[in-house]
Structures are given as structure tokens and as C-alpha cells.
């Protein structure tokens, strides 16, 4: 009886935590994909890993460690250039170094006990079965902040991401906006890594949004589709984990595989979409004069 209750609560936490992550990742991911900064998100998750293991070593709250390191990285990227687009060499180096630091912290930390070693694995690949209600509250607060900030900057951010020259001409503060978005991204990745680990965070940030952008050219619809896909993929992955015939396959595998599949499907569907458009507008050059 007690065991059953415990199990069901674990499951409920996994579903709630997964939904929080999926919603925020779906929203932030849309802008991430438009700005071609997917690689930066990858770097932030690895930096988050270093922050979390470093914090564990120091005995500090791991979310705090992740947020501090990610925000520092955001500031660094912001100083590097007003657009992170194409900054792949710098980001790649930071990413590897952060992962290396994380491994160092983890190896020192895990020497103290076997349990500690497991918690490091959880940060990397996520165990959605260890989410507790404090994690959920913390993550919810961070994600709500991120979505709130995004709702304030979304119009200039979209303008700046899609039509940078036009936005600059209209007086949109490009540098400040870029820095603000990186800060939102840092906060998002930190909160998501806390709940589901770096693998799922990166996968939920990138795949659903990229799939949505392939399927529609309406911004509002794309964000809605991206969020819906992220939540759908997460919950379906959890259902498969808990109820699948082959049990004990990690949720991280299911969810990341489903996310990749969704993106693949969107590529196929996009081809059909575009061909239809091309048929409707056989020669885009035809003028109406």
C-alpha cells in the first residue's frame, strides 16, 4: 500500500516536472531556433552541469550553482558578440571546458559515497523518478520568471531575430536584447537541468521548436505547436517508461528518441508543405504591378 502510494507520487512528480520543463523549453526553444543558437543552449546545459556538480561539492543548492555559472556564461557570450550566431568555435571550447570541469567536480564528489556518484549521473542524463516537490517548486518559480521575461521582450526579440537590419533601423536595442535572451536561456536551462538533466533539456529545447518552425510560418502558432509537441513527447516518453512492455528503459532515452522522431517527421511534412506552396505560387517573381 505504502509502496504503491510512493510510486504514484513519484509518477505524479515526473509528469508535473516534465510538463513544466516542456512548456518553458517549447517557448524559449522557438526563439533559440530562430536565432540559430541551438549550440549555445547545448553549452549552457553543460555549464549547468559544471555548476550543479560544483555546488554539490561545496554543499550549496545545486540550482543556485547552475544559475550562477549559466548567467556568468551568458554575460561572457554577451560580451563576445551582440549575436551569438556562428560563434561556434568559442562556444565549442567553453562547452568542452565546462563538461571537463563538471567531470572533475563529479569525480571528487563521488569519492565520498556511491549515492553521490548516482546524483551526478542524474544531472547528466536525468532521472525523472527522483524529482521531489521542492525541486518542482524551485523549477516552477524559475520557469515562470523565464516565461514572464520572454513575454515582455517577445516582440522586439522576434523582430531582431528575423529581420536584424530592420529592427536596428527601428531602434531596437540589439545588444541588450541579445543579452536578455541569453539570461532567459541561462535561467531556463538551469531550471530544466535540475529536473530532467542536460540530455533532455537540450533535446526538449531544440527538437520541438525546430519541428514547429518547419510546420508553420505563423509565430504564435509555432510557439503553441512547439509547447504542445514538447509536452506530448515528454508525457508519451513517461508513459512508455512506466507502462511499456520492456520496462526499466530510461525515460531520457524514450523522450529524446521521440523528440528526434518528431523533428524527422516534420522534415518530411515540410517538404510536402513547400511543394504545395510552390504549386500555388509557381513563379514567385511574377509581379502584380
Amino acid at each position, binding site marked *: 500500500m505504502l509502496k504503491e502510494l510512493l510510486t504514484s507520487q513519484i509518477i505524479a512528480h515526473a509528469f508535473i516536472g516534465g510538463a513544466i520543463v516542456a512548456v518553458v523549453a517549447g517557448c524559449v526553444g522557438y526563439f533559440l531556433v530562430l536565432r540559430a543558437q541551438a549550440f549555445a543552449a547545448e553549452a549552457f546545459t553543460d555549464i549547468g552541469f559544471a555548476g550543479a556538480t560544483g555546488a554539490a561539492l561545496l554543499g550549496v543548492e545545486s540550482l543556485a550553482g547552475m544559475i550562477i555559472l549559466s548567467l556568468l556564461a551568458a554575460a561572457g557570450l554577451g560580451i563576445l558578440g551582440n549575436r551569438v550566431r556562428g560563434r561556434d568555435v568559442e562556444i565549442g571550447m567553453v562547452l568542452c571546458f565546462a563538461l571537463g570541469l563538471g567531470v572533475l567536480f563529479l569525480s571528487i564528489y563521488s569519492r565520498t559515497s556511491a549515492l553521490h556518484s548516482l546524483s551526478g549521473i542524474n544531472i547528466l542524463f536525468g532521472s525523472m523518478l527522483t524529482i521531489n516537490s521542492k525541486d518542482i517548486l524551485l523549477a516552477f518559480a524559475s520557469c515562470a520568471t523565464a516565461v514572464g521575461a520572454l*513575454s515582455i521582450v*517577445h516582440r522586439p526579440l522576434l523582430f531582431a531575430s*528575423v529581420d536584424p537590419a530592420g529592427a536596428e533601423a527601428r*531602434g531596437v536595442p540589439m545588444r541588450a536584447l541579445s543579452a536578455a535572451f541569453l539570461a532567459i536561456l541561462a535561467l531556463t536551462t538551469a531550471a530544466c537541468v535540475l529536473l530532467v538533466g542536460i540530455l533532455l533539456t537540450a533535446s526538449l529545447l531544440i527538437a520541438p521548436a525546430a519541428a514547429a*518552425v518547419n510546420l508553420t510560418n505563423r509565430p504564435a502558432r509555432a510557439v503553441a505547436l512547439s509547447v504542445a509537441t514538447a509536452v506530448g513527447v515528454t508525457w508519451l516518453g513517461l508513459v512508455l517508461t512506466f507502462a511499456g512492455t520492456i520496462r526499466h528503459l530510461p525515460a531520457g532515452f524514450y523522450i529524446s528518441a521521440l523528440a528526434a522522431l518528431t523533428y524527422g517527421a516534420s522534415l518530411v511534412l515540410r517538404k510536402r508543405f513547400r511543394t504545395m506552396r510552390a504549386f500555388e*505560387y509557381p513563379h*514567385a*517573381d511574377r*509581379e502584380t504591378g
Partner: protein
Amino acid sequence: MRAEPDGMERLPVFLRNVRIGFGGRAIQDEMTFTIEDGEFIAVLGPNGAGKTTLLKLLLGLVQPETGEVRIFGRKPRRGNPEIGYAPQFRTLDTNFAVRARDLVGFGLDGHRWGPGFPSRKRRMLVDQVLEEVRASEYADVAVGELSGGEKQRLSLAQVLIANPGLVLLDEPLASLDIASAHEIISLVGRLCVSRKVAVMLVTHDINPLLQHVNRVLYLANGRCAIGSPETVITRETLSSLYNHPVDVVEAMGKKFVLGVET
């Protein structure tokens, strides 16, 4: 030095004895001209003559070293809502994430903060300006699927939706085929009349514009000349501007400037 009648200073553009420089070197000296409401001006001149710098001066991004600049009677300032500026380089080629109408809508509220909800009035405004530039047909098509000429129309619509009194177009005809260029030019000409908006259009080739512009502003060699194409694009005016012999040849209804690199 205040003697100008008030009316003159209220004009879209008023420049007197303006000197603009870059790194100690004068790009333009003694610029004096005015532009009136609804005027269509072509801005010509070789590379480095100061065409883009002049636009930046009007936009408040560059300060004059000396002289007086007025935009509708006021000093140039950044983010001036009375000026619509369409920059030269646009990276919209591969963009499938937004529709033509979204791009135009940016001109209305793309710079505003806060949540912002779609409204019927907003949609109507976007539809109206799309109609005005004859882009209604592809209002819902992804920007990445449109041709260069179609994108130029959207660029124009994005600027016009904010209702500016002065529009600055930096090389809108670059990389357009002749037919599309002609259509953009006659569209701009019509808008000057219907909206009473003053337009300064930077270009390398005056020929497609000859029948449409009111005046030509020719920048070269640190100086400028302004007037009708017939008076400015002549052997005498250009030779004195460049300070060396230049010839203008007319053939097939077009003007060709010889003896300079344009």
C-alpha cells in the same frame, strides 16, 4: 545665424553649411539643400562619396562637424518616428518562420515591449499597407519564398506602416532585375504623391529613375549638387563637381557618365 523663415525649417530635410567627416577626413563639406514634402529624390554618387553617411546624419547616428541640420524643424535624433529607414542589407533569404504580414507588422509594434495581443485594428492596418504596396496576394506566404522584388515591397510596407513623413531607402534596387526595379520605382513615385511623403532613394544607376524623380542629389569629391536630372547630370555640373573632365553621353534614352568610376 537665424534668419531663415520658419516655413523653410519645417521642411522634411533642411541642411545648411553642413560638414560631415570620418576619422578627420571630410566626406562632405558645405552641404546646403532642402527637401520638400512629397518630393522624390535620387541620391547618386561614387562609392565613399558619403551617401550612406548622409542617411546616418539624418537618422541622428552621425553628428555634423559643422552646420545646421533639421528634420521637420527639429534636430536629428535616434529612433525618430518621422523617418522611415529601409537599410540596404537584409538577411531574410532563408526565413520561413514568418509570413509577409508578420514582417510588415514589425514596422508597427515590433519595437514595443510587453505582451501585446493581436487586434482587429492591427490586422486592418497591416492589410491596408499591404494593399498599398500591392502585396496582398502573398500576405500569408513565408518571407523566404518571396522574390527580391516582393521583399522590397514588404520592406517599403514595413516602413510606411509607421506613417513617416520622410522615407530613406538605401539601395533598394540593388540585386533586382530591371522589371522589378521599374515596378518598385513607380510604386515609390505613386506613394510620394498619394502620401505626400518625401523619399530619398540611394542608387547607383539613375536611368530607371529618370522619368520618376523630382530631383537628383549627386555627391562626389566631398561636394554635392542638387537639381533636376537635366541640370545635374550634365558635362558641366559633373565636371565641376569631380574637378576633372567628365562627359555625359545620351543614348537610347539613357544617360551614361564617362570618365569616372560610379
